[in-house]
């Protein structure tokens, strides 16, 4: 179909989005070429100085990026495995099927920062229930103030929060699968494990890839949880890219420099997602 | 009162969906567009409806420029091969929809809708939900919706193809009755189909279409008796007309070193040279004194048997009146009924037919 009316449908949304976004993006590019900070708040032009600094003299940014990669890849992997497992279980007949489906969805409906506030009391090192129970075994892990363990705590919270989203996408996918391949597999006498590897998993590959990419994109923005749980600490032990940029831009007010960080980060993200998507397609689709 | 298409062409990509289509259609008649899948039938119907704007060409209805009227003012009706209705409306509301769109008075709408529902045999179903109907009933609703408008052009795009065999036969019969009745006296009815039998049964005119072009237009009798080229001969017959190459020499038709036939009366004047010969499956029968062919496949269809047989380069399909089983590779003796022989020249154009003789 092709009518002039088509613009009446498309343009309102497109123009509103462009109008809201053009300035921020253009301005960020310009800002990244300036030295705007709290001492000298003006849009001067210093060329690519910020970028030079970022590539040669900012180990903290790259460490934060490494940490973010570790956190997001690990948590998304765990979310995928657990989410897929749970989806497979409640996909088939099980007692209280609908109750479990609702229950497993609930965490994604909750506000991450608010639940993290609760988690902070939950993992509180002297007053929280976790260490209270562990005290019977005479251990008192430093969930929030140990450099290694704090990363682990962030992961627990992330997995709790976002496994439901993976679960939802995968269960919706499972429920939309055609019945015939499963019938054929059962006629051929394939057991549940063979059926999974030869039928379910290959059929779910496109949906899996989509779900993993969506979650990786969301996970690459991790910052709310970190802000509330550990404030990036102890030291910089749980600082992610977003959080570091936030500190530089909106705590230290180095607007120019943080703009350069933002753009570099965004471009790295776009490149990574493109590569990861291609890799996943190769890995999961060739697998069958 | 007529619909005239001239030089309609549409080429969205590298292939012509419509290639210089011309025709003239007049009111109160059924036109069947017969062609294989992807021949351009649906494109043609959508172009007539106004859903596709052709790259070139004009459409006129009663001397008015029809092609420049937007779809929603064009006063056409269309039934799709998928059962398309408005899922959120009841049967009554579905059929009333086009009339409400015209702001007709409600008592008038009611009378027209009830009449249309009665015509398609759905009286009593007014308040049903569309989803609660069977496929055949859904298609009747779609048909009622196209009738109720009393549109000047009614388009039916393979409306029966998604129904099971028995229902298809039954509905086709009903369609023919509805459309030959008073109701459609003022409409041009265009029906597309891949099935030659269906086209013949509907009567009226046939337009044979292939690769976006209209190959032949004529009454069903004309198209059946004198297909103007080999493609038409294939498209208008099920199974497709057998085609095989051979020579005419010395008053005989030489097909291979072993097979030669006598020239039948209607081919007597043929000049010496190479031709393409055509014969319907029914013209090829078993006969103990015939030529030896080996069986490639036999298909039983109802009380008949289609026999796919081959002799050297000549592969043909024969039709037997009874149910018989054959083994693959089995040698059978076959006779060609030359009284039913068609002859085409090297350019695939008809030279001689059993009904008209030599051109």
């Amino acid at each position, binding site marked *: 179909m092709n009518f002039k009316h088509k613009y009446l449908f498309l343009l309102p949304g497109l123009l509103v989005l462009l109008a809201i976004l053009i300035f921020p993006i253009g301005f960020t590019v310009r800002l990244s070429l300036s030295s705007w900070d709290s001492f000298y708040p003006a849009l001067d032009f210093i060329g690519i100085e910020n970028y030079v600094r970022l590539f040669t003299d900012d180990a903290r940014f790259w460490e934060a990026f490494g940490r973010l990669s570790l956190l997001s890849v690990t948590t998304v992997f765990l979310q995928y495995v657990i989410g897929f497992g749970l989806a497979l279980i409640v996909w088939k007949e099980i007692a209280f099927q609908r109750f479990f489906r609702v229950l497993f969805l609930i965490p994604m409906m909750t506000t991450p920062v608010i639940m993290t506030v609760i988690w902070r009391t939950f993992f509180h090192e002297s007053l929280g229930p976790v260490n209270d129970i562990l005290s019977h075994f005479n251990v008192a892990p430093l969930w929030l103030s140990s450099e290694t363990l704090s990363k682990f705590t962030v992961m627990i919270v992330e997995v709790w929060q976002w496994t439901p989203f993976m679960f939802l996408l995968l269960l919706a996918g499972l429920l939309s699968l055609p019945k015939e391949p499963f019938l054929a597999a059962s006629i051929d006498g394939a057991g549940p494990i063979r059926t999974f590897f030869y039928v379910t998993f290959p059929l779910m590959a496109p949906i899996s890839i989509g779900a993993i990419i969506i979650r990786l994109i969301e996970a690459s923005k991790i910052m709310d949880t970190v802000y509330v749980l550990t404030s990036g600490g102890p030291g910089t032990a749980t600082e992610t890219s977003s959080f570091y940029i936030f500190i530089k831009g909106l705590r230290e007010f180095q607007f120019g420099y943080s703009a350069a960080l933002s753009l570099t980060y965004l471009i790295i993200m776009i490149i990574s997602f493109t590569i990861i998507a291609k890799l996943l397609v190769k890995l999961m689709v060739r697998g069958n | 009162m007529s619909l005239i298409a001239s030089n309609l062409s549409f080429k969205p990509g590298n292939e012509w969906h419509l290639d210089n289509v011309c025709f003239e259609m007049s009111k109160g008649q059924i036109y069947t567009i017969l062609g294989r899948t992807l021949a351009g039938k649906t494109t043609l119907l959508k172009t007539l409806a106004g859903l596709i704007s052709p790259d070139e060409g004009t459409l006129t209805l009663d001397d008015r420029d029809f092609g420049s009227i937007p779809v929603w003012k064009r006063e056409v009706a269309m039934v799709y091969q998928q059962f398309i209705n408005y899922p959120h409306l009841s049967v009554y509301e579905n059929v009333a929809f086009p009339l409400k*769109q015209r702001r007709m008075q409600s008592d008038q709408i009611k009378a027209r809708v009830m009449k249309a529902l009665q015509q398609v045999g759905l009286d009593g179903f007014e308040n049903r939900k569309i989803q609660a109907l069977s496929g055949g009933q859904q298609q009747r609703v779609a048909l009622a919706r196209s009738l109720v408008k009393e549109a000047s052009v009614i388009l039916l795009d393979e409306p029966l193809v998604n129904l099971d065999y028995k229902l298809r036969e039954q509905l086709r019969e009903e369609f023919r009755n509805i459309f030959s009745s008073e109701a459609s006296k003022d409409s041009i009815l265009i029906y597309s189909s891949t099935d030659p039998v269906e086209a013949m049964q509907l009567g009226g005119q046939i337009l044979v279409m292939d690769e976006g072009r209209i190959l032949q237009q004529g009454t069903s009798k004309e198209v059946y008796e004198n297909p103007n080229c080999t493609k038409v001969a294939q498209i208008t017959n099920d199974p497709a007309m057998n085609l095989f190459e051979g020579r005419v020499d010395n008053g005989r038709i030489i097909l291979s070193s072993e097979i030669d036939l006598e020239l039948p009366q209607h081919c007597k004047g043929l000049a010496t040279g190479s031709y393409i010969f055509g014969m319907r499956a029914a013209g090829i029968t078993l006969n103990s004194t015939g030529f030896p062919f080996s069986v490639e496949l036999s298909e039983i269809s109802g009380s008949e048997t289609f026999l796919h047989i081959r002799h050297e380069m000549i592969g043909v399909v024969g039709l037997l009146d009874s149910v018989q089983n054959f083994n693959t590779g089995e040698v059978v003796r076959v006779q060609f009924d030359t009284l039913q022989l068609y002859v085409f020249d090297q350019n695939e154009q008809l030279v001689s037919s059993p009904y008209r003789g030599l051109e």
Partner: protein
Amino acid sequence: MRVLYTSLKYLAVVLWSIFVIAPFLWAVSTSFKDFQSVTNGATYIPWVDFEPNLEGWRALWKSPAQGGVDIVEPFFNSVFVTASGSLISIILGTLAAYALSRFTFKAGFIRNGDITFFFISQRIMPPVVLAIPFFIMLGKFSLLDTLAGLIIVYIVLLMPIAVWIMVDFFNKVPVEIDETALIDGCNPLQVFYKVVLPNSIPGIIVAGMFCMIFGWTDFFFSFILTFTEVQLLPVAIVALNSSITPWWSLSAAALVSVAPLVLVAFIVERYLSKGNLSGALK
């Protein structure tokens, strides 16, 4: 073998359920505590481990000056911003998705797919990248610390979700229905509101739920772009986190803010089990 498989299945489900519920149970329990029962170490069961009181819940209505939290206004601010942002996003997003699913657009090298990608790709943008320019832009238009400013930002946040879900939804609805409506005398605008819209309600509800989830749970933008005049619920609650820790009112406030969206989980599950969600999510 079969018994082992079944018991493992139930074990997994029960363990995960405990993990899911644990923070909620803890929050419920904490919300009935007072200073004494919090600082004495972890306690769990009211009347057994500690003497419950309603201090935490009462604080929700008291102003901060009286030692309360006062989440009533932030609650309604959140409702207003989420609802308006979602509504505008759904309206604009559904229209755009319909155009992208049904019509062909060509401009230079740009095709439908590219425009769809432009919409959806806004989700890749980390909030922190947009935060500074938004901060400056809203400041220029005097929209910092206002509900209107937040709604504008929420449109960027939510429209990609609406477009993503609705394009998939429309792609699954046969285009012949639209064509039939055109033939029956509707112009393209009438086709949309008389035929397409009434048949798109399941898709719109799913898209609306996702917009509400992502709008209601957002923290960062309201945190950066509002200060004192306007406060949204997450910001109000997180603000408590940094002050002297009144765990009881904190827990009560958290439960109140989480409760409305938990109801959405029931609706999502209904759609999921009826198979309507798989059409809308892919």
